[in-house]
């Protein structure tokens, strides 16, 4: 038993377990405090509301894993929604062609960012910050006002509800789940995925071990671009509009989710299911606040910050003591 525990503590997935347990505690407290919390739909709403964020977080996790960052995700998402809405409103092309087109656009944009970063050794923070500015600006250039998506096929997709058990989920959730699975498999079971971890562990070592550093780097930003665009489609399914201010500040939410889920910003450590729970935790915090129902704007901010803080410190505390715990238990085993 003791051995089991010490193994668990030493395991790579330790901070993931911590995240899951804290999530469960938070949810449990919610159920204890508010009756409505227990409805299955409240749980499913976490997915419905955050489908786009989940997808974007997947993309950003790839970049964080190589020790990079992608600040452009929110803006690319907004641009995707905008271009999609514009295409559907102003051209006769079919929904699927439009979707393919915007996915291609996001992917290409990610690739360009990746190329600049890898080829010229530029700082990802700055390049993707510029990318963010660029996409926000372009969104405004296309239209300052919101553009509605009225295309019947797309609206039907948006209205689609898949019932699961006692509740339902939306199309966005289905996309997000698929993306999660694909990403987890790619990272865990393909050479490309492992190269990403290696690159994050030590770029110089990865290069000396003969891994394709340049290609991997570019691909990672490309994937992030693709995920942002895919997230954009999930977002458009939720909003049915293109608007300049969509996804404002989403990059920070995504980074925070990923990190809460156990990703290290220094690269090399991270885990897709962790990222998912990172998103869910932020979602629960917001659900909490809306169930609470009396907080003013400023208290909302403070409480979100405080809960985030409690969570992060708790995680840091446990991780900090992890080394001591393992040392202790291994000593006990010895003697």
């Amino acid at each position, binding site marked *: 038993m003791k051995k089991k525990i010490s193994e668990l503590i030493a395991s790579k997935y330790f901070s993931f377990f911590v995240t899951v347990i804290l999530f469960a505690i938070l949810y449990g407290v919610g159920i204890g405090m508010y009756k409505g919390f227990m409805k299955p739909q409240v749980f499913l709403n976490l997915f419905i509301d955050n489908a786009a964020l989940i997808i974007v977080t997947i993309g950003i996790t790839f970049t964080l894993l190589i020790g990079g960052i992608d600040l452009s995700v929110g803006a690319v998402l907004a641009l995707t929604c905008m271009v999609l809405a514009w295409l559907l409103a102003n051209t006769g092309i079919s929904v699927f062609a439009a979707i393919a087109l915007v996915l291609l656009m996001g992917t290409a944009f990610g690739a360009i960012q990746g190329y600049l970063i890898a080829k010229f050794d530029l700082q990802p*923070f700055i*390049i993707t910050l510029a990318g963010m500015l660029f996409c926000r600006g372009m969104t405004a*250039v296309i239209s300052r006002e919101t553009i509605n998506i009225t295309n019947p096929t797309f609206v039907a997709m948006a209205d689609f509800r898949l019932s699961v058990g006692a509740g339902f989920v939306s199309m966005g959730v289905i996309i997000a789940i698929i993306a999660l699975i694909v990403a987890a498999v790619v990272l865990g079971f393909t050479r490309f995925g492992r190269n990403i971890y290696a690159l994050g562990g030590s770029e110089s070592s990865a290069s000396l071990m003969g891994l394709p550093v340049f290609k991997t780097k570019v691909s990672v930003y490309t994937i992030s671009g693709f995920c942002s665009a895919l997230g954009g489609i999930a977002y458009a399914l939720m909003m049915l509009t293109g608007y300049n201010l969509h996804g404002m500040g989403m990059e920070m939410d995504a980074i925070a989710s990923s990190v809460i889920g156990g990703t290290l910003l220094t690269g090399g450590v991270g885990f897709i299911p962790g990222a998912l729970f990172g998103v869910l935790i932020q979602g629960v915090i917001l659900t909490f606040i809306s169930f609470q129902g009396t907080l003013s704007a400023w208290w909302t901010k403070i409480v979100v*910050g405080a809960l985030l803080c409690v969570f*992060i410190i708790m995680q*840091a505390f446990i991780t900090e003591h992890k080394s001591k715990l393992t040392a202790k238990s291994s000593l006990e085993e010895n003697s």
Partner: protein
Amino acid sequence: MDKLKSFTSSSLFLPIVALAVLLIFNGIFVEGFFDIQITEDGRLFGRVIDILTRSSSLVILSLGMTLVIATSGIDISVGAVVAISAAVVCTLIGGRGDGAAETPMALAMLASVGIGILCGIWNGILVAKFKIQAVVATLILMTAGRGIAQLLTEGQIVTVYYKPFASIAGVIPGMPLPTNVFIALAMVLLVVFVMKKTSIGLFIQSVGINPTAAKYVGINVTLVLFLVYAFSGFCAGVTGLIESSLIKAADANNAGLNMEMDAILAVALGGTLLSGGKFYLGGSVIGAVTIQTLTTTLYALGVSADQLPVVKAIAVIAICLIQSKKARDLFDKWKSGRSAKAVTADAKAVNKA
């Protein structure tokens, strides 16, 4: 000649070139860009002066940010701390219509800078003691900070009618430039002085490059980190004073909005790597002025605010490419490749003849 060479290879060269290019562009395309008039009361008035005044906040923030980044950290809470500091000073002085101050201004100023430092200390504790990654640690205050500021102002924009308050970012009669320019200058000199006269700079770099090795030579890594974040908080506190004095009010929603990104950008444009280590204060200052110049330029050209980011993005990437060593190497190679081709082509031509 030697001097020129040492200048071109100095760390400040590229940031300066980037700024110069921008200024020259302005000189050509913006009418009367370099005009400076002297008003009746002896003040200087003109676009260049505006740039100086407007950039002073960013300059101050980027000083703190440079040191934080040098330890391979980052402080994304500065914008929110600016708002808190602004809220503190304005609520303390109070928004009384009769122009009286509820708290003596000096005390209020002290309190707001103090709060800034306190916020910095909070970040410092999280990063140095709890060993939380800097982005996440400062994210907490970034999220909650504006809320705290709004709590202080109760969601109002507290306008201060107390006259002397305006002089923090305004012109004290008889002075040629607004006070905030002098404050920024004083801060820069202070930091440069401290870096020259103490070994803090060396320790900061050591911590940024290799924290383990820094620990092994007896550097108190925790203390260094702590100080750096506290200083960043101090800078944000001072900036809060200036920003609130500029509009004579505390606007909890907008004071210091997105300034963290601009400060980070300034540091990066100044040549400091975000991965930490060597840092260039002069570069950051120039970077900050560059960013403000860019904004002013675009206003002057009437580029609309929502399209402004596109131009900014392109300018930033161009500046980065100019500064990138690898880009230069590649360019040199390409050039030498071309001239080599030209030579062989010439040789062939000669051979034929």
